[in-house]
């Protein structure tokens, strides 16, 4: 690379600003409460997609187990909310008041030890970040230190997603089983079910996502990000240059996991329950698809990709549920065969040149550094 990209150059700033305007001004102005809440749900998936851009797009590590991380965050938050909803007064018809209803149905008479920390909100938030990081570290160090990569890593993470689902459904006394953890009411005394709460939560969600996007861009443009790309393309050369490849891989895998967990926690808050149907193989692959549609190398593309796929899913499945599955399947194939760089690639190849040309008429500096970076990225082939 001729010139190292600096963090948040003008172009990034404009792009992030545009996203911020769309999320914070345009959507709330145009959409009613119901649709806005839907967007909030989609945005929680975007956390995962942004993490996947770092991990898969830049690092070349395809994880098919992001649903597990999403679950760690989502269930963490749900456990806190459920405990708050299961106060002794609310649950006095149970044989053991004060514990979640599904535990009572499963003859559990005492709150299990691993639920105890979730009585406290600060501790819950801490755990939502720490547990996925730790889990990512354990999985990552076991695999990357042994140089498991590519297809093997994908399939092993997929198995993890399958195991997590079976475990959650099987241990229903502790997890709520296939129903998930439902009937969540208040967050630290604040009713999250009302329309005004949903409205506020949307903004919290959007701003948090923008922070994550900014952080991801920081990582991408730091030296770390460049080492990741180098690793993806020629792992051995990076290793021979004296870098510990495994450590970088572990770090980015953990980071993607933490992003996913934050998304999961926000999902629980916005949707009002957490369920094992967001953990398994299918949702985990869908999240990869969001990233792929957006363009696996583009952080902002991941957000737009998530929104686009989900808008399509909701509107198509409202009118043509059969068509939707065919469309989704076709989309996967099209993204892989025709647009390997997704929406971001389409934007860069077909839209951006026009904008650049229009700008060039006014601009005196024809060698805009940002355009160079974009060109370089365009030249880089997609992962593997």
């Amino acid at each position, binding site marked *: 690379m001729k010139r190292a990209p600096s963090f948040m150059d003008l172009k990034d700033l404009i792009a992030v600003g545009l996203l911020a305007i769309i999320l914070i001004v345009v959507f709330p102005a145009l959409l009613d409460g*119901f649709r806005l809440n*839907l967007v909030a749900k989609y945005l929680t998936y975007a956390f995962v997609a942004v993490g996947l851009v770092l991990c898969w797009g830049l690092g070349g590590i395809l994880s098919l187990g992001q649903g597990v991380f999403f679950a760690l965050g989502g269930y963490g938050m749900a456990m806190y909310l459920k405990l708050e909803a299961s106060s002794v007064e609310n649950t006095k018809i149970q044989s053991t008041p004060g514990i979640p209803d599904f535990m009572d149905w499963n003859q559990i008479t005492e709150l299990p030890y691993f639920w105890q920390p979730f009585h406290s909100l600060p501790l819950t938030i801490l755990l939502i970040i720490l547990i996925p990081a730790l889990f990512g570290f354990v999985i990552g160090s076991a695999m990357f230190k042994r140089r498991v990569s590519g297809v093997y890593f994908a399939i092993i993470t997929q198995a993890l997603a399958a195991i997590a689902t079976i475990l959650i459904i099987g241990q229903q006394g502790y997890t709520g089983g296939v*129903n998930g953890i439902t009937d969540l009411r208040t967050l630290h005394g604040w009713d999250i079910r009302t329309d005004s709460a949903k409205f506020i939560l949307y903004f919290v969600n959007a701003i948090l996502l923008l922070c994550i996007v900014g952080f991801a861009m920081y990582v991408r443009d730091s030296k770390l990000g460049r080492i990741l790309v180098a690793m993806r393309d020629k792992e051995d050369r990076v290793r021979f240059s004296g870098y510990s490849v495994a450590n970088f891989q572990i770090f980015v895998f953990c980071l993607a996991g933490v992003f996913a967990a934050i998304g999961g926690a926000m999902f629980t808050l916005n949707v009002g*329950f957490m369920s094992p*149907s967001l953990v398994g193989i299918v949702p985990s692959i869908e999240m990869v698809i969001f990233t792929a549609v957006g363009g696996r190398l583009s952080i902002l593309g991941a957000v737009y990709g998530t929104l686009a796929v989900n808008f399509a899913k909701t509107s198509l499945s409202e009118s043509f549920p059969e068509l939707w599955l065919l469309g989704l399947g076709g989309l996967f194939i099209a993204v892989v065969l025709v647009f390997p760089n997704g929406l971001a690639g389409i934007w860069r190849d077909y839209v951006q040149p026009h904008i650049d040309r229009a700008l060039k008429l006014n601009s005196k500096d024809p060698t805009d550094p940002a355009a160079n970076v974009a060109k370089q990225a365009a030249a880089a082939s997609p992962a593997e």
Partner: protein
Amino acid sequence: MAGPDDQLQSRLRRQLLMGIAAAPLAGLFPKVAFADTPATSAVNTTGLAVTDTEVTVGILHSVTGTMAISETGSIQAEKLAISQINEMGGVLGRKIKFVQEDGASDWPTFAEKAKKLLVQDKVAAIMGCWTSASRKAVLPVIEQYNGMLYYPTFYEGLEQSKNVIYTGQEATQQILAGLNWVVKEKGAKTFFFIGSDYIWPRTSNKIARKHIENFMKGTKVVGEEYFPLGHTQFNSVINKLKLTKPDVIFTDVVGGSNVAFYKQLKAAGINLEKQTLMTISVTEDEIDGIGGDNIAGAYACMKYFQSLDNPNNKEFVAAFKKMWGEKTVIGDVTQAAYLGPWLWKMTVEKAGSFDIDKIAAASPGIEFTKAPEGYVKIHENHHLWSRTRVGLAQKDGQFKVVYESPDLIEPNPFPKGYQ
């Protein structure tokens, strides 16, 4: 080959045409058409989707995903009921229009679609959900936006809501009569439970176990096993059956696992003519996939069988087959789904209003004498009084009813002594 969807399309089109053809006729008889059509402002004070000529309800089931296998029958039954009600003149003089949404076998999607139906479409009632998980996901939405859900599946109980009418049986209603029968008729002493691993089988088996251990003399449970949803290998548990030799195998395995279980049971030489097996999860719908040969001789315990011999049911089965094809079968849940629109219609007419609160209040005591299963009545707790029957599976995929509870059984979603 015309798929069922094509048939559906053409049928819908035909109904639509019939509806258009009927409209001028209605104009010829203004008295008949408008005599019982009260003003919209009077019957709809909360802004539901009710006009002078139409009322909108929602149908919310899985059309795609793994649950589509089971939920298809419910959708068909609900559409049949709606078209029949419309042919009779609709509800309070208004034709029922339905908005169908796909829950896609995914619980958050169910919640999303339920909210859409209530907030955007302002439906007057929702016929829908199948699994407990989907109902649990939808329930807070229905309660928050004050909707009305007619839920058709037999389920584990432990729930009661002002906003839900449970048209299927809760667990005690379904199971206890069957257990009593099998102990009395077959002299059963030992039971082995096999279920899919989620809340309904576990709760049902818990209730069955309590009943066996606490309320019946000299009977005991010799084994209890659960398998993940979708499990297809049952040879190990079949060996355990051979080891423990229970008098009764009591099963609540669901979905594709069912097919694997019964096929492997038969292959392992366990002859259901000799070995008593009682299931609470296999209806005529499931037998379609299992194959009548593989399950003949098993007993099923539920409230409805397609073979029930009464005039209501004959009429219902004929109408169902006329609409959906000669080869379709009707299971317990399908019949319960058929009750939903009818119960709603009668409740609306009793309340004289589409308002949810008035319907919720008017529901207890509603009787449906034309129900295919016989006579049903809504209880204070929004479940149905109903009879429980035991059917013996035949080779042709139908059940022969061998026992029917003499009285209507009271629904008891929070059974004392069974928790």
